């Protein structure tokens, strides 16, 4: 195991007339480019917002406003209003000529400034204003080291997103995924925008199914380094890890219970692939949750911990079932098509994302529990491993372009799609981390 930080650069291409984003691109240091985020489509209603460059941010090791703009753009729910020609740029409420911004169509305005503190850290202040009502919607100050400036920008984007959409922002969260480079596998953790990627595990054998603990401090995953699948739990704080399921046969598909103390896993210790409950510290004896003669795999807990969704072929083809988290009678939930797999509860528990095979294609779909309505969200050839953003708005998934694995995201209403591409390597098995307070 080794730890390594991979420098990234961020390149963004806006489609469908999202031109102001080129300004963000121009301000990005070229040496960090490795990840491209492409936005396809947009929300039904986009909020026009002007984000004015913060005072004194130009000299910072990491500028703030380009990160905020990029975050909001990526959601597909915002349209950037150009501040070009406004002189001087306001950084305090008293300097704002509201008419300038209402004339440009802005329904929200962000201003701010950065102060270098005596200890070398920075104080970043920002205000979110409504130019029509001429009122302040939010105003906060953050103290940050140089290394925390990006995170600070993401947190500001979260506040803006929440104030204007009513939903929790998820820009300051992290994602994990597996990169394959030649014969080498790397489990990486990065910011939700792809920056600050770090390898938390490197191996010459495959790594699959990474899963975040509810508090975001640990990852469970399956590693083949022992020439068979074994489930590990690794602390992201200390880097230490432990095999928590290493029984005779195969051990796989770890899913955290919301209490963070237990994992549902798939074991073959008693024969066929069945779902068991184990302690996340590897102690004790597994409790068997399913008893079928078929394949039962890919468990996933409901947010309240009461239910488990899983994939089973007990009906002849792989379909999605639900059962009580303590085991017991399972109910089939999917009926369209003959291959529905990889269920993931939405954070509000009202729907689930999954992979549906249509002809030879595999696509991400979402099904509402109440209406049983299914919506296919993607149109790739091989889209798999769906993972909800913690606010439920986006679904991160693995896709393939030209035989190479990439990551992509789609909004849970199917309107906005992003493609996240690493320039080198084959990327797969994404999992979006939780909101961390």
């Amino acid at each position, binding site marked *: 195991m080794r730890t390594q930080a991979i420098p990234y650069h961020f390149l963004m291409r806006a489609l469908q007339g999202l031109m102001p984003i080129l300004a963000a691109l121009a301000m990005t240091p070229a040496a960090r480019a490795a990840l491209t985020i492409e936005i396809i489509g947009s929300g039904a209603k986009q909020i026009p917002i002007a984000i004015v460059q913060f005072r004194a941010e130009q000299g910072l090791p990491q500028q703030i406003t380009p990160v905020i703009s990029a975050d909001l753009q990526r959601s597909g729910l915002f349209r950037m209003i150009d501040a070009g020609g406004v002189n001087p740029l306001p950084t305090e409420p008293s300097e704002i000529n509201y008419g300038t911004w209402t004339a440009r169509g802005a329904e929200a305005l962000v201003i701010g400034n950065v102060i270098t503190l005596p200890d070398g850290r920075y104080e970043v202040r920002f205000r979110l204003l409504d130019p029509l009502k001429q009122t302040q919607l939010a105003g906060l100050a953050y103290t940050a080291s140089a290394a925390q400036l990006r995170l600070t920008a993401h947190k500001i984007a979260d506040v803006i997103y929440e104030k204007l959409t009513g939903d929790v922002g998820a820009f300051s969260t992290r994602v994990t995924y597996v990169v394959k480079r030649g014969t080498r596998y790397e489990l990486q953790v990065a910011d939700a925008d792809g920056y600050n990627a770090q390898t938390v595990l490197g191996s010459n054998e495959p790594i699959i199914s990474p899963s975040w603990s509810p508090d975001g401090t640990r990852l469970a995953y399956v590693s083949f380094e022992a020439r068979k699948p074994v489930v590990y739990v690794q602390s992201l704080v200390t880097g230490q890890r432990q095999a928590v399921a290493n029984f005779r*046969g195969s051990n796989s598909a770890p899913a955290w219970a919301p209490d963070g103390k237990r994992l549902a896993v798939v074991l*073959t210790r008693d024969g066929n692939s069945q779902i068991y409950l184990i302690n996340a510290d590897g102690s004790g004896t597994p409790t068997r949750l399913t008893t079928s003669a078929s394949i039962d795999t890919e468990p996933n807990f409901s947010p309240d911990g009461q239910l488990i969704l899983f994939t089973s072929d007990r009906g002849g083809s792989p379909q999605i079932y639900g059962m009580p988290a303590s085991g017991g009678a399972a109910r089939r939930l999917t009926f369209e098509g003959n291959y529905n797999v990889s269920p993931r509860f939405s954070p509000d528990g009202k729907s689930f994302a999954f992979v549906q095979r249509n002809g030879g294609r595999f696509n991400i779909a979402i099904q509402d529990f109440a209406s049983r309505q299914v919506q296919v969200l993607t149109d790739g050839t091989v889209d798999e491993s769906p993972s909800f953003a913690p606010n439920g708005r986006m679904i991160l998934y693995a896709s393939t372009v030209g035989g190479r694995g990439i990551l992509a995201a789609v909004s849970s209403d199917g309107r906005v799609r992003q493609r996240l591409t690493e320039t080198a390597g084959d990327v797969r098995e994404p999992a979006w981390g939780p909101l961390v307070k």
Partner: protein
Amino acid sequence: MRRILMGVALATLLAACASTPDEQEGAKVEERLPAAQPTQPAKPVEPGTATKPLDTGRVAGDPLKDPANILSKRSVYFDYDSSMVKDEFKPIIAAHAKYLSQNRSRRVRIEGNTDERGSREYNLALGQRRADAVKQMMQLLGASPDQIETISFGEEKPKAAGHDEAAWAENRRADIRYQGE
């Protein structure tokens, strides 16, 4: 079914025995006679006589590694989405079952594999079921369950790298590996 398989196993074992390794080994020994003994007539070595090979015994003596022996065949191939053992691979499984039943100290691991299509975790389970299908047939033919561990690599360790039917067919496979190999 069981009787037929046993019959097939026996036939294949007999076929394997027909090419006795001793003759080949004897010939090799003769070729290696030192040139310092030119007066020695180059008479053929009788099969089964006392001449012993110096360095080839281990390899040729192990039926698992004899290319002419069905036991050297280690892969069972499957159809898409299927873990049903096809007739053409039953003789291979039967031969290994027979070998395991006669060599109780030997252990095997059967590794299931799938093609790249579909969910990685579901494929891991499907590969496991392929390995289990081979194991069940071996048990039926006399191998002990203690001798066999089944695991799966799912789609994670493809033998063929392509993305077409030929590569997929090669990757829908269970491999028989003996402990210590």
